């Protein structure tokens, strides 16, 4: 044994007691939401609560046709029935109640649909990134095909073919948006596939499923989560635009999109009937985007702030 290595060893022994290896970087700060982000969280929370309790807190049943007249202004009182805080719609129904009931439809359905879209899109997308070859080729082509057609067209085709029941609506939205999720998931998947730990797992002889769900997916969660928010917004708007073709959620069930749609005439003589549901949609979608904005592009923003003009 030479002195050098000898020395190194002894010193190192002693060194370990005095000088531990230092952590590489100062502890990373968990991201803290800005005030806009907090507003977002609050609003989303509110609507989620409404999804659950909406029908019970609503003054009327969504389908009650009880008001004295259509397009009544906010605060009108129908004798023996009650106050219409946000007025009434074209069919003499209470708007506030319909919005509260509608949360269930709009928020609930969009949420489930988006979840489904992710289940499908992510699995297929990452699988494509992992398996490559023909599997990838075929999936990608089908995917392109779906992407290349206007969403509302596909919506029309599917809904008309199978009727616009709620399950069908969910399925439709899910399929359509799964394709865009597929694209993203595949991209992230390919990024992660080049990581050594994935190769290590392959070298170990792990199954494709282990690689997809244990090695790749967990590392794609964060970026996908932010995209989830945006996707959810698109689904909300997609379903309301379906209602434009009369294919959305069907009456008497209230959903915000069709509420806007059916009361549009109201606008023509200054009724707020269509404005309220529009606000509901906006409040929900904006809220989600506020959160997403806050989560994503934060660090980038920090560095950008250090720029001096």
């Amino acid at each position, binding site marked *: 044994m030479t002195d050098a290595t000898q020395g190194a060893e002894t010193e190192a022994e002693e060194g370990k007691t005095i000088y531990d290896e230092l952590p590489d970087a100062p502890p990373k700060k968990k991201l803290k939401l800005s005030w806009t982000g907090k507003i977002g969280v609050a609003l989303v929370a509110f609507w989620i609560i409404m999804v659950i309790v909406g029908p019970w807190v609503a003054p009327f049943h969504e389908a009650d046709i009880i008001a004295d007249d259509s397009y009544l202004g906010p605060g009108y009182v129908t004798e023996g029935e009650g106050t219409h805080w946000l007025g009434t719609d074209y069919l003499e129904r209470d708007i506030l109640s319909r919005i509260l009931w509608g949360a269930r439809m709009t928020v609930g359905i969009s949420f489930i649909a988006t979840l489904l879209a992710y289940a499908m899109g992510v699995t297929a997308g990452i699988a494509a990134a992992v398996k490559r070859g023909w599997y990838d080729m075929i999936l990608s082509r089908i995917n392109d095909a779906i992407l290349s057609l206007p969403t509302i067209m596909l919506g029309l085709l599917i809904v008309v073919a199978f009727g616009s029941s709620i399950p069908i609506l969910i399925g439709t939205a899910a399929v359509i948006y799964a394709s865009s999720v597929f694209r993203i998931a595949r991209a992230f998947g390919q990024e992660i596939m080049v990581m050594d*730990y994935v190769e290590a797992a392959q070298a*170990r002889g792990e199954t494709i499923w282990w690689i997809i769900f244990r090695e790749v997916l967990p*590392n794609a969660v964060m970026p996908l989560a932010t995209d989830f928010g945006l996707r959810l917004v698109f689904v909300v708007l997609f379903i309301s635009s379906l209602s434009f073709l009369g294919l959305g959620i069907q009456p008497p069930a209230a959903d915000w999109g069709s509420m806007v749609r059916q009361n549009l005439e109201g606008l023509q003589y200054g009724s707020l009937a269509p404005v309220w549901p529009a606000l509901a949609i906006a409040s929900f979608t904006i809220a989600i985007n506020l959160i997403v904005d806050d989560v994503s592009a934060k660090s980038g923003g920090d560095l950008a702030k250090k720029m001096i003009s």
Partner: protein
Amino acid sequence: MSELFEIDNLQIQARKEDGTPIPIVKGVSFKVKAGQVVALIGESGSGKSTISLATMAYCRPGLEFPGGEVRLHGKDVLSMEPQDQRNLRGNNVAYLAQSAAATFNPAITIGEQVTEAAVLHGVLTQDEADKRAVALYHALELPEPARLGRRYPHQVSGGQLQRLMAAMALVSGPDLLVLDEPTTALDVTTQIEVLKAFKKVIREEGSAAIYVTHDLAVVAQVADHIVVLYSGEIQEQGPVDLIINNPTHPYTKRLMAAVKPTPKAGMGEDLDQQHSRVVPNIEVKNMTAGYGGIVNGKPAITVLRDINVKIKNSHVVGVIGESGCGKSTLARVIAGLLPAAKGEIFLDGKQLQADLKNRMSEELQKVQFVYQMADTALNPRQLIGEILGRPIEFYRGIKGAARREEVAALLRLVELPVEFESRYPSELSGGQKQRVNLARALAANPEVVLCDEVTSALDSIVSSNIIILLKKLRDKTGVSFVFISHDLSTVGSFADEIVVLYAGRVVEQGPVDEVLAPPYHPYTRLLISSVPELRVGWLEDTMQKREMAVGIARGVEITDSGCPFFNRCPIAIDGTCDVDTAPIREPSPEHYIACHRTIEEIAEIEAAPQQVLHGFEVAAPEGDKAAKPH
């Protein structure tokens, strides 16, 4: 000398969730005189990079300056107006980052990036700047200086980029140069090249510099003054020769100890003959491998040619060579990650399938691969317990409590606390991650562990600790190691046998003591003399050596015919070496050298070192050296 630059009780801190400060730099003070090179040394996490950035009144997002002053020409830069701070950056103070590859903007030409600062700060007009840049390219001995400016970063080599960084920093003739680990990521040969260039231009430009590194040997070559840092505090500082020749502080001693010794015979250990067998663990027979489609046993891009390697069990075979010589490829081929185009691989005498997809589980289990970068090798979303537990369960079917026990045992084996099983990789330091990385390979109860550059990315101290660990592991477990590295001294101190790869061919192989003792293959020679010594003036001395003259100036060229080292070999025979494949000479049993020169010739040339039989005089950079700062 006047105080050019002064750091006075500098403090830098981060903040926790709840806003309570975490000090990163705890009241550091030192001075830099004009023309002086001050080295900040310490292992990663010592805050040396953070301090170096503070010289430009800059700190990374999440950090802040609670107190202290950073004075340039007596003026505090931290309290300056943002405008003035900006005018300072890239003008009075210039920065060279660790990884040039990352810090060059891929979308902008080199020329523009190099001259940008000078032009923006109005120091020079674009033409002047361009001229000056070309001059600096000359000074830094970069190829084709005239055309270099029009190229894009991805079109030049890592070593060249690193030097271009220097050009970028120097173009506006800064008073102070800040170099952050500028050579750490480089091959020994490249490192010398870059060091030499840096030292030269710093001298010529006469600007002061702060040189941040963890490698004392490097410091000894460039610095006048040394500041030793540990966890944000100065441990010791003083003139270079003082610190180098008699360090007083224990931490400095420890740094010294971690410096790689010059590779020489006998630096390794005699291996105990326990659990040795007749059949080698792994035997690679005239294997050829590479990338791209394979046409009759020849891949589109051939990386390895006719490789023959034996790995006796419980032996350590060191594979050495410059980056791109194919040493990692060799490991990947053995692991089956890259199917060989030609040749066989035997495990315990049984032939292995080329592609790991066709290998049986137990074969996979016996051969384990350890990646260079623990960061990418450990799944950041899995707990250490999971990372180590999975192979245990997968290969050995051990589950539940038994599995946890095994994991604990492994952690103890690699000298990590057992609690780590419930942590994520990101919560560990580089060294600790590398230990986990090793532990995962061992978790499979392998016979052979292939270590790909496992110490290259680590600080000297940390890596020396890893080596110590590896030695213990080999003795405890009787596992054979293939230890791949570009660092000859590390290999020398650990391996039983050495394989020297050059441009995808074995140029020399044999028992460590044989290889590290004359007669050397010229390339081995070059590698040995490239390992920096902890001695002031070593750089100058070694640059006088013959092998450096041609060896350093040129890059690797993959050739189909002849000896690939031809163009960098000081003793090559024109018309032979560049045409015929070199014959294999066997100076002693199991020691092979591939060279056209006979052992005798080599020996006698070694005896008379100075004459250059082939190639060039010590390459003197052409063009005007008169690029003076304004």
